[in-house]
């Protein structure tokens, strides 16, 4: 009857809406609905200027995780970056984390360069060897005005 046709139409609408919401939150928002497929590592950088939470973590050009969180370590005055790494990617304790830029003015991301150690990093461990963000302005000023430290 009339009543059921209204209800069906509303049902279809809600379904389409839910699919759209699901696409946005799961696919684009990368919401972890299905348990935690990641383990987390910390890395300490002198500067992470330009790096944002959600930025890509890659190794050899393959995406292996994301930046979960960036905080300031108040005691040492350096940046602590929390990385989410896909389970199954094995990293060792001498891996080098460096902040890189895709293109000249593109997004910042973190590149992990593998090491040769046999000690494997687990959740909560710290990556010790890091390279901070390349500051183009600093580079240019060094080039133009000469390096004061030299």
């Amino acid at each position: 009857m009339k009543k059921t046709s209204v209800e069906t139409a509303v049902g279809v609408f809600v379904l389409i809406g839910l699919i759209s919401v699901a696409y946005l939150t799961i696919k684009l928002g990368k919401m972890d609905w299905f348990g935690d497929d990641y383990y987390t590592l910390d890395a300490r950088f002198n500067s992470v200027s330009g790096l944002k939470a959600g930025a890509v973590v890659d190794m050899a050009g393959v995406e292996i995780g994301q930046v979960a969180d960036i905080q300031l370590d108040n005691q040492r005055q350096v940046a602590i970056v929390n990385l989410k790494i896909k389970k199954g990617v094995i990293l060792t304790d001498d891996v080098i984390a460096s902040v890189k830029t895709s293109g000249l003015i593109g997004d910042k991301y973190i590149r992990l360069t593998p090491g040769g150690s046999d000690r494997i990093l687990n959740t909560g461990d710290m990556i010790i060897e890091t390279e901070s963000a390349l500051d183009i302005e600093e580079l240019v000023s060094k080039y133009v005005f000469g390096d004061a430290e030299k």
Partner: protein
Amino acid sequence: MTQSYTITNMLAGLGRMAISPVQEFGRVAIFFFRGVIYLFSFPLQADKIIDQVYFIGTKSVFVICLTGAFTGMVLGLQGYYTLVKFGSEGLLGAAVALSLIREMGPVLAAIMIVARAGSAMAAEIGIMRISEQIDALETMDINPVRFLFSPRLGAALISFPFLTAIFDVVGIIGGYVTGSLLLGINSGLYFSRVESSVLMEDINGGFAKSFCFAAIVVTICCYQGYTTHLRKEGFGAKGVSLSTTSAVVLSCVMILVADYVLTSFLL
């Protein structure tokens, strides 16, 4: 003597001008809170809410898809010609998706719903007011705010986020149509940019906006209709037309004002 009288009069007029909007805002706020309370009071009015979701939501899907598609397409076009100047047309997916999800989606969807459903709400409730139907509800001991406003509020809070999500998704596809199919950006690049640039915060922010807009739009439109009989500028059918007009104009203005305020809080 007369002069001092005129001055006092002018001051009183100024005072009235200052007080009346504040008073009006207070009345709207009370109206809104009454609606919220009755929305959750038993017995729940589920079938009325479903009817209203049909009216506000289902019937708006076509319009939302249409406007969403063209908004996405024009964003793709404009974005491409702007980004190509900096040689970074690969970022088009990010530009389209972010502007849709953070701004255009919630705002344009809300404005389209105002045009389609908000005006109708104001007119319907206004006519009920002038033909004594609201008085009739009161004589039957049916609370008119509960009966008329709460189901619409509930339905809007359900429909707005869904319509916004549909608008966003259709818009992103629209951007793909112009960006990739017409202007030749690699389609994989477009979608990977869309995926990598959008964060959960952006999506949450967009939904927070659409919830706020839902509350604002329905409250303003229903309130305008509900108080049609209090208008001093016109009665009867004229009053309904004035209510409808001011409901649409006020809603649109308040959407944009609230959008600015919310954005400044969310960023």
